[in-house]
């Protein structure tokens, strides 16, 4: 079975994460073809069910990537605020 994925919509990271979880069960080949990527998957029993799951999984990773991109700065600030050790003594260099 071959599924064509539009690389202008789905990043390499999204596709890789999707395939990571599928690779336990299937042998998968990725072939770059311009703005598209052809994903070849062998030995699928129920192709319709597989394709439906594939797109749900891929779209979920796309949603997660949007969240990660939009929140990466605030996440850095939150972790810095949470784990900054304010008990470190700083030397006043102005004197």
């Amino acid at each position, binding site marked *: 079975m071959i599924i064509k994925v539009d690389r202008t919509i789905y990043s390499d990271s999204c596709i890789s994460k999707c395939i*990571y979880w599928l690779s336990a069960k299937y042998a998968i080949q990725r072939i770059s073809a311009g703005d598209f990527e052809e994903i070849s998957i062998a030995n699928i029993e129920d192709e319709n069910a597989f394709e439906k799951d594939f797109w749900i999984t891929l779209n979920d990773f796309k*949603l997660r990537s949007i*969240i990660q991109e*939009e*929140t990466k700065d*605030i996440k850095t600030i*939150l972790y810095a605020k949470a*784990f900054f050790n304010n008990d470190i003594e700083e030397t006043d260099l102005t004197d």
Partner: protein
Amino acid sequence: MYNLLPFNFTRLSNSEVLVNELGDMIIAPNGTVDAVVNHSLPSNDLYKTLVANHFIYEGIVPPLIDVYALRLRTKKCFLDDFTSLHIFVLTLRCNQNCVYCQASSQNEDSANCSMSKETMDASIKLMFQSPSKKLTVEFQGGEPSLMLDLIHYAITEIEKVNETEKRTVTYVLCTNCFNLTDGLLELCQKHNVLISTSVDGPEWLHNKNRGRTDSYQRVVANINKARAVLGFDRVSALQTTSELGVNYPLETIDEYVNLGFHSIFIRALNPYGLASQNNDWKQYTERFIEFYKKALDYIVEKNKQGVFFVEEFAVIVLRKILTPFTTGFVDLQSPAGIINSVLVYNYDGYVYASDESRMLAEAKDYTFRLGKATDDYEKIVCGDTAKQCAKVWANECIAGCSDCALKTYCGADPVRNYSTQGDMYGYRPTSLLCKKNKAIIEYIISMIIDRGDEVLPIFRSWLL
């Protein structure tokens, strides 16, 4: 107009389950995440819930950013004091022959497999190097009750050092309760030692697993004896689900209720020692998951009938989901419990990263040996082995976990990855630990989604 805060999501029971960095969970209809991400969420009750629970915020900077940061730190507060659980493996000698023994126990009369006083001295010295104000000293084996003199020596020495150290020390004796002598119970009473024991299920099942016809009878008699001397709640029990026991969830729960326990900690077998010879781990894991689900359903039914009875693994998960707090359970931590929360002082004079690490060592695999008990503390907790572990011990940073919506409720386990998959990093799609943890956490969340009115009052009563 609103902005997003970091969160993840998964799909369960025909709903979307949104989880933020704090472990706060919101159950929402399908299509919610898409609307949130595309900034098209209408200003309704769900919108207000998402604002109130730190999923989205209005304005340029989240108004409660300091509260969020404080809560984030609280969720990782198990790191504040560093190692608090110190396991002393006193001996490999044992007086039972459990079919699933994970600790490579030896016969009762075996030689050269018990801790010397010199190793105990060095281990105690090392333990007190830990900055933790609270120290839990856990005596393990083999069967540690066979080492009464060494337990007495250890407690005496620890108390002596603690006169100046002033730590809060808790003692736990992990015993099979097969032979609790009066002398041992007297020692336990004097020093408030908790007894942690194990019953596998009904009498016939327990005896079959333990390789003795009289095991159940003696263990139950000794549990009652210990309760009488130490106090009823000073004796707790962990259950281990053997290959045979996996067929008897209801009978196992009934046994614990009948023995007067108010809780059970349902545990799967780990692939160490004799247990590693299990024929089919994949099949066992699937059967264990079904065992767990049936047992948890049955426990909920018991509670509905007025019997207060708790499943401890579920409590750990529920505490992470329903409260702002975390737990001290080392198997569901990120960064992992190894070294950060637990150190193991083995009878062989070496220090290991976890209980499982010393079990690997019995198979001549010393990957997680941190050093000798006589080594400097810094070499043990900041040495090369610790540094290797540190690269892969946070599930926020490893493939398969970092994108998992349930990672806040789960943990990283480099030792299990190594022992079952050959490397510390691991491969989540075929990891049976991932499969088991995910299945159980998802089941608990599904119960909340599908039967919230029925199960939430019970689950909340378990957290009081």
